[in-house]
């Protein structure tokens, strides 16, 4: 009798090891996962093997890309709002300063073009996009009358992948405005259907995406820069 128990215990230990080593077929693996939840002794065997064998998976240390942390953070944390933005890192302050000077320039241009015979133009909206990790900074200026969005990238670290611009209404989900140039200033026409979203309090964000299939229904890649739309 006790021999059977010893053999069963040994078999369980081997199964636990096979589970940890991922040697089992998918169905065997699923069965063992279920058993993990139900059988504390089996679970203890699995944890013991995990603890013992984990070092085998270690290899020489290698530092990943310095951008990776920012990407991880942007996934686990919500997009920054004006309220929870902490001390401004250098890049963000630069973007703000640039935005302010751009706004001043555009403001002057606007005033010079005013024509009393025409109803006064709608107030432009602006956004200064940045990131605490320093992965991107860009200014945006939206002219509601022409439905034109002017983009001026400052820095965009997109690792040679495509960059997609999103507008996120307050409390809503992201809508794609399409792929954007991350190097040169550009202008894009905003579709009539998207116009209601371009309002104060909405967010603009840039994510890294694969170019195929854009505009995408939802963002897949990490956020490299974001900022709230405000009135000029």
């Amino acid at each position: 009798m006790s021999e059977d128990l010893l053999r069963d215990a040994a078999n369980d230990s081997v199964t636990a090891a096979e589970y940890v080593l991922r040697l089992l077929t998918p169905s065997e693996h699923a069965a063992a996962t279920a058993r993990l939840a139900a059988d504390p002794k089996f679970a203890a065997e699995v944890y013991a093997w995990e603890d013992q064998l984990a070092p085998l998976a270690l290899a020489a240390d290698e530092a990943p890309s310095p951008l990776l942390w920012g990407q991880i953070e942007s996934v686990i944390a919500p997009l920054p709002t004006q309220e929870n933005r902490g001390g401004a890192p250098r890049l963000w302050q630069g973007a703000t300063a640039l935005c302010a000077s751009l706004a001043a320039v555009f403001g002057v241009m606007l005033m010079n073009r005013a024509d009393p015979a025409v109803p006064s133009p709608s107030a432009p909206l602006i956004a200064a996009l940045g990131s605490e990790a320093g992965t991107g900074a860009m200014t945006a200026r939206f002219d509601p009358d022409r439905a034109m969005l002017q983009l001026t990238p400052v820095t965009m670290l997109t690792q040679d992948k495509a960059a997609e611009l999103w507008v996120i209404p307050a409390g809503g989900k992201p809508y794609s405005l399409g792929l954007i140039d991350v190097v040169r200033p550009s202008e894009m026409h905003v579709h009539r259907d998207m116009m209601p979203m371009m309002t104060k309090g909405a967010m603009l964000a840039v994510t890294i995406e694969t170019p195929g299939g854009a505009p995408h229904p939802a963002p897949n890649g990490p956020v490299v820069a974001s900022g709230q739309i405000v009135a000029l």
Partner: protein
Amino acid sequence: MSEHDPSADATHFAATRADQNRARLTQALVRAGAGDRTAFAEVYRATSAKLFGVCLRIFADRTEAEDALQDAYITIWNKAATFVPGRASPISWLVTLTRNRAIDRFRARGKMAFAALDDASEVADDAPLAEAGLIEAGEYKALGLCIETLEPRDIGFIRAAFVGGATYAELAARENSPLGTVKSRIRRALLSLRACLEANA
């Protein structure tokens, strides 16, 4: 008094240092489990190079390895509350989680791209453990000793399984051996390894 042995001091110091690091990492992981993002950043700083090494052993392509690493840390953040300090060392828990996520991603691709078994460097190669300074520090001494009691071919199997994520079926295919034979070999090796680890606990 016997002669003063400086290497014994070094070992003792390293062992104490290892204990301190382990305690610090445990604390950071537990706090991350409570939602502390600064603690999570500390976990990342302390472990990202090690865990990236784990991913690079499974994915030859650096970009894929980084994707797997990002996936791993997001999972670590989501599951940090399930880490039980007494049950496993924090680095084992992190390595296990990272490795499992990486293997899931790897298998989802449907390819078998791991190194050939007859690569001599793979068999009976405990260099990574030594490089990582873990054997000397006494943390994984038992594993290093016990692995060496196995036959080189069995060590190769276990490494291929653990590092490369191969299943019994894949190992049998690579070896051109019947599935039953490979299973018996590895099971015998695991039993022997277990006995040795328990004896040296």
